[in-house]
């Protein structure tokens, strides 16, 4: 049985909806069922945002993932992933970018945060911003993170690359190539 319950998290504007769109398109191509709940409106303005993405070859009832049932929390920001820890399943993975997004005064010490994340069973930390710069632009850090999670998601990597190509197609060949580079770098890094 194929099944992935994924919580995507970050701060408004970090591009979690692009990750959701790529995975949904890829899953649709493989004829899998999808439900993907996202946040629009007021909370998008620099606030905490999340998306519940469910992919399965069986029927999906709820648009929201119940607590303790997320296979993956994929976070573009270290603190934001921890906000959804109660949703993580027993064997679930917390895959997070190490680069903090600081837009509040009381942001905790980043080194302390990373230490806390390392204590969580099943956590994978990578510096997506660094890899994104190497791929061509720091703006592709969300795609690096998608790559990092991709080995653990029930969708073929070919379908995800195909979806990325379709999403970035209208921005031109170079942007497509840059995002594919970012995706592959993330995928490689998480496998190591």
């Amino acid at each position, binding site marked *: 049985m194929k099944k992935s319950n994924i919580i995507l998290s970050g*701060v*408004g504007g970090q591009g979690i909806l692009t990750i*959701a769109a790529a995975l*949904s*398109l890829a899953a*649709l191509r493989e004829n899998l*069922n*999808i*439900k*993907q*709940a*996202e*946040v*629009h*409106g*007021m*909370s*998008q*303005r*620099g*606030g*905490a945002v999340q998306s*519940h993405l469910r992919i399965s070859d069986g029927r*999906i*009832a*709820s*648009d*929201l*993932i*119940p*607590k*303790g*049932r*997320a296979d993956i929390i994929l976070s573009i920001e270290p*603190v*934001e992933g*921890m*906000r959804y*820890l*109660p*949703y*993580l*399943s*027993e064997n*679930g993975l917390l895959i997070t970018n190490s680069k903090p997004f600081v*837009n*509040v005064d*009381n*942001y*905790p010490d980043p080194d*302390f*945060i990373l230490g*806390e994340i390392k204590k*969580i069973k099943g956590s994978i930390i990578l510096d997506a911003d660094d890899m994104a710069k190497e791929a061509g632009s720091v703006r592709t850090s969300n795609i690096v993170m998608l790559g990092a999670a991709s080995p653990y998601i029930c969708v073929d990597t070919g379908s995800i690359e195909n979806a990325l190509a379709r999403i970035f197609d209208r921005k031109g060949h170079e942007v497509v190539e840059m995002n594919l580079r970012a995706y592959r770098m993330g995928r490689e890094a998480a496998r190591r």
Partner: protein
Amino acid sequence: MDKLLLLGDEAIAQGAIDAGLSGIYAYPGTPSTEITEYVQRNSYARQNGLHSDWSANEKTALEAALGMSYAGKRAMACMKHVGLNVAADPFINSAMTGIAGGLIVVVADDPSMHSSQNEQDSRFYGMFAQVPVLEPSTQQEAYDMAYAGFGLSEKFRLPVLMRITTRLSHSRAGIIRKEQLNQNPFSLPDDPRQFVLLPSIARKRYKILLETQVSLEDNALKSGFNVLREGKEHKLGIIACGIALNYLEENFPAGIPYPVLKIGQYPAPKRMLQDLVSACDSIMVIEEGYPLIEEGLRGILNNSPKPVHGRLDGSLPRDGELNPDLVGEALGVTGQQGPEIPEFMIDRPPALCKGCGHIDTFKALLEALEPYGPGRTFSDIGCYTLGALPPYNAINSCVDMGASVTMAKGAADAGLFPSVAVIGDSTFTHSGMTGLLDAVIENSPVTVVISDNETTGMTGGQKSSALGRLESICLGLGVNEKHLRVITPLRKNHDHNVGVMMEELKYQGVSVIISRRECIQTAARRKRSK
């Protein structure tokens, strides 16, 4: 046919287009905005000239949709729940006139108030107007109901209210489409007096509306949107309305052991309710919103023949959005849970974007008001409402669209001076203009700051009806030219802007200060699309 991956909102739009929609009318409002935006983007809709421009407010939208229905065509009006308060007059009265071409009024409720002032449940409006109400449980059903809703509307010659909530509005799933229907031909109503609600005619129309109720109930039993499912264990019967059904099913992956009545069409199917209540020892009602069915079952004397559980007895929370965990808990299904949220977790509330013009407007206003002390700034609905939060703490009210101007006037009438309104450009043309007219007529000492970002920002940058018209509107309403000031909210203009504001705050009459700078999000999008 391939599945389309659509938000609940988009599924409604696609269903309406496929059902032969001729026009959609709306004012943007979370979580309803994406319905109209989808029609605006849709190539079939563009090629076939479907109307999809934004309206000035929800009332004008619903009235225009009713006019399109008068002319025989299928029309849709869309709004958020509080928008239906604005459009309540045409909505209630459209049930009295009835319709010609099919008319669906889509209302997106926002339980848990993710982006709203309250969490009112629009099903009550449907009951109030005595029209059919559709409430989808899935994106596919949202599509199917929009598709079938026009036929339902035309069958009973009544508007249909379609109620959706945030979670379904903004969640995507695969949709299977039906056959594309043609638009209705243009026609005039058979009865030239149908839409004339003079008291003598209105009394007849109301009798017709009342007589139709029996058929509406009968239709609710047969429509297929209400389904009574058998279950092995009869100690409990469950009623699940709309999206609540999904949360229920999530908790019983191997199948629900109890009988379940799924409700998706109102008036509530009485016979199905009777069958469920008589077959089961107690009833659990799961509703996303207010306890409408639950209150009905309990009755005003709380003398239901069987115990009723739900939001009123604490089985489910009295307020807020449902989720699979809350529903599981109510039914005694215990789940697992991951690690606790760490204690060092921070709040990250929404904030005005870095570089936003509203920030410079607030900074100037705060400085200009400093000699007078706090508590004199009434504000409104939009991004600038975030000016209530630190570090600005700049506004003292946010009630409903346009209320800043009228509340400032009322407070001025009570002796507050200076009394200030801060309102956005789109909110001003939505409902601020009429209040400004009140102030002009009495020459009330109010200072109205229109924080003009040349767009409808909070909902994602839709076209503002105020664009290019603010000065002429204000002058046309009678604002004195000398006290209509235009400033550009930039840091380099701060001292000048404070000066202008101080001058106008001193004036014992109506001043309007237009503080104009394009929304940085809209500007960036415009540059990218070039």
